[in-house]
């Protein structure tokens, strides 16, 4: 796969309707059962507009998108910045682009991001991926 990838290539965009129940299931599975991640009323008491998605879940969804393209176990490093609130019950998109190739290590650098329906980049990051 490494030889067929070029700088500037875009990863297939993954679109997902992020249901509240999916966020709750993640919060349970990830041991992050804080009100902000499980119910609107609890989140509002913390000054939030409603339930939000854990940043770790956003990282997990970006990882799933990267691995869907590169293969299981290909991810070597992922760095993210949480810039905005990822609100559930909306459609999100996981996107990425190849920024650099390392011919010696057979790895590529990616810019990755999670955006909302208005194309606002709520989570941005970079990743290193090993390609066979």
């Amino acid at each position: 796969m490494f030889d067929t990838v070029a700088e500037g290539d875009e990863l297939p965009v993954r679109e997902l309707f992020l249901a509240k129940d999916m966020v709750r299931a993640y919060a349970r599975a990830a041991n992050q059962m804080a009100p902000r991640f499980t119910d609107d009323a609890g989140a509002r008491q913390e000054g939030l507009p409603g339930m939000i998605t854990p940043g770790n879940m956003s990282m997990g969804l970006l990882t799933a998108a990267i691995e869907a393209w590169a293969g299981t176990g290909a991810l070597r490093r992922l760095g993210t910045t949480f810039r905005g609130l990822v609100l559930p019950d909306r459609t999100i998109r996981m996107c990425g682009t190849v920024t650099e190739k390392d011919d010696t290590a057979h790895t590529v650098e990616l810019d990755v991001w999670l955006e909302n329906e208005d194309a606002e980049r709520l989570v941005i990051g970079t990743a290193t991926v090993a390609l066979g």
Partner: protein
Amino acid sequence: MPLDIDPALLGREFDHTTYGPVASDELIAFARALGETRPEYVEPGPTLVGHPTFCVRYKGHKFYPENIPKSINVRTGLDAGKDIAFGVPIRPGDTIDIRSTLHEVYEKTGRSGSMYFVVIRFTMTNQRGEMVAVVDNRFMHRG
């Protein structure tokens, strides 16, 4: 006001926590919650491994070192992001050892004033001493 951090605090371990053994059900529930359907993440058996970000499920018992400056209020920190270097995958039956260090503290000034960033590093290894992940957790505090 600049933070008065004792340089000796940087890199010094302030927490050591062990979790485990990891159960297959935990790995599968985590992967399914991310919408994963690949057999290696959701089917019990010898080939089951944890989704790469399963490691963020773990944290130390102490969030910050005890002797961090009081101007940093632990309860008001916002999760600003993470950097993860991935090692070997987590497998059922593993025990995960987490050593926490204060990795970095820095200040930035933005439109809304000054902010402090505190980076806590979790170094995670399994029972064989293999590196599972190094996770840098970046927390932001208003100055």
